[in-house]
């Protein structure tokens, strides 16, 4: 579904990614692991179109994404749950969710209420906070909102960047279950995590990134047992 080939990207004159290649097949959940500052977020931003790769290609079901604007990529079915959530602090939960609908094929009232029902089914807390501004939500609730936002869009591929960062165990469990649930619903997931244990519990496969390159790829079981994981991640 998502094919990244030899991608080089960075900020201004600073190169960060040096020829990253990875593949996520339809229906899979794939983990992208790596220590701090290795370029995981940079890769996510590049896939989403926030950064333009200097070299290499990114394809979604054969459609080239590299020259497209973020909103076009979103409308092709890619949803980003970004690092630090990036919920719109001044907008209500409802407004945040309705913005999520921007990438949906239509914005009919019927689709909106169906998607809202869906989201509230999975995150009842958001329904209770529907008129509250985003900034008044707890960290865990903001994370739910960030996930719910891309569910509103009906994203086929969800890029999640450290969704469990800074969350209490109960929230981490909820997020983990939600990723499994998304997978069950047929959504493809690329998950960046510091918490390798959580990531490997829900993902089929994983990649390890180091200094802007992929250095290891294996099934989740192998990754759990391999000494390479321990060496590269320090866990």
């Amino acid at each position, binding site marked *: 579904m998502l094919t990244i080939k030899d991608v080089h990207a960075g900020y201004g004159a600073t190169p960060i990614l040096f020829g990253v290649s990875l593949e996520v097949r339809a229906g899979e959940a794939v983990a992208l692991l790596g220590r701090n500052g290795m370029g995981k977020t940079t890769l996510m931003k590049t896939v*989403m*179109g*926030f950064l333009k790769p200097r070299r290499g290609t990114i394809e979604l079901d054969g459609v080239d994404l590299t020259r497209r*604007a*973020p*909103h076009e*990529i*979103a*409308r092709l079915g890619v949803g*980003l749950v*970004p690092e630090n959530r*990036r919920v*719109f*602090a*001044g*907008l209500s939960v409802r*407004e945040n969710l*309705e*913005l*999520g609908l*921007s*990438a*949906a094929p239509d914005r009919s009232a019927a689709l909106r209420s169906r998607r809202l029902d869906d989201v509230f089914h999975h995150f009842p807390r958001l329904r209770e906070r529907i008129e509250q501004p985003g900034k008044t939500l707890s960290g865990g609730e903001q994370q739910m909102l960030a996930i719910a*936002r891309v569910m509103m*869009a009906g994203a086929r591929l969800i890029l999640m960047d450290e969704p469990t960062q800074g969350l209490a165990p109960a929230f981490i469990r909820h997020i983990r279950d939600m990723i499994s649930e998304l997978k069950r619903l047929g959504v493809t997931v690329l998950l960046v995590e510091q918490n390798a244990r959580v990531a490997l519990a829900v993902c089929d496969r994983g990649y390890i990134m180091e200094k802007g390159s992929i250095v290891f790829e294996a099934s989740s079981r192998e990754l759990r047992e391999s000494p390479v994981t321990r060496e590269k991640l320090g866990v």
Partner: protein
Amino acid sequence: MDYVVAVLLPQLLHGLVFGAALGLLALGLTVIFGLLGVMNFAHGELYMLGAYAGIAVIGMTHSFWAALVVAPLAVGAIGALTEVTTLRPLYRREPLYGLILTFGLALVFREGARQIWGGDMRRIMPPFTGSTPLLGMTYPNYRLFLLVASSVLLLAIWLFFTRTRAGVLVRAAVQDAEMLDGLGVNVPRVFTLTFAGSAALAALAGLLLAPIFTVYPQMGVEMILLAFIVVILGGMGSMGGSVVAAVVIGLAQSLLTLWMNPQRVAIAIFTIMIVILIVRPRGFFGREGVLE
């Protein structure tokens, strides 16, 4: 009592009228500041172009009302064109580039107007004359109209930002334009339309105020200074704050002219600004982190 009715009350109303119109100007400035991270130095010139475009339309149609519709649309189109051709290539650069650019645009617009219309002072006749008895005095009808029109416009803008999807998009773009784009919103188009809207509002303010002021190429310079003060006082980027500050400055300006000459009024207004900023560094409703 006579002093109150004959002098203080009309001046108070003048201040309110001026403040409401100033609010229209400051609102556009605030929103653009939120989007670009810089003050739009050309905003005063869009205000000036509104008045001149109004004169042009009145010349053709002999109707102030036609001008009130056409001039803001024309200046809005100029705003959209300016955004697409000059500002858009700069968004990924430092805000300083935008600052220098809008400063240059202001000069181009001002000198362009001088070339086309000359440097003379001009007047626009109010669409209606006469006065209405009010609170024991009589007050010019056009100024009353101005007060009502500005208030209705401010209310409409508030409804736009809180009740419409387009308004929510602009607020979201102010907070995190990149994320908004990532959610599937064509953010460059939001920027263009917002710039056009802010230009149209400035033009509307310019034309509405023209019958009580004079029209000349530098008319925007004085106003933009006041509008900057309003935006700073309101708390950079706060829309509600801008409206409150506009009324405060409008009233201050109007009342102070009773007791001092224009130069001293300008000094007094800056003093008010400095004092308020010492007490409340973020202005009336400044958001945390806007200036840090």
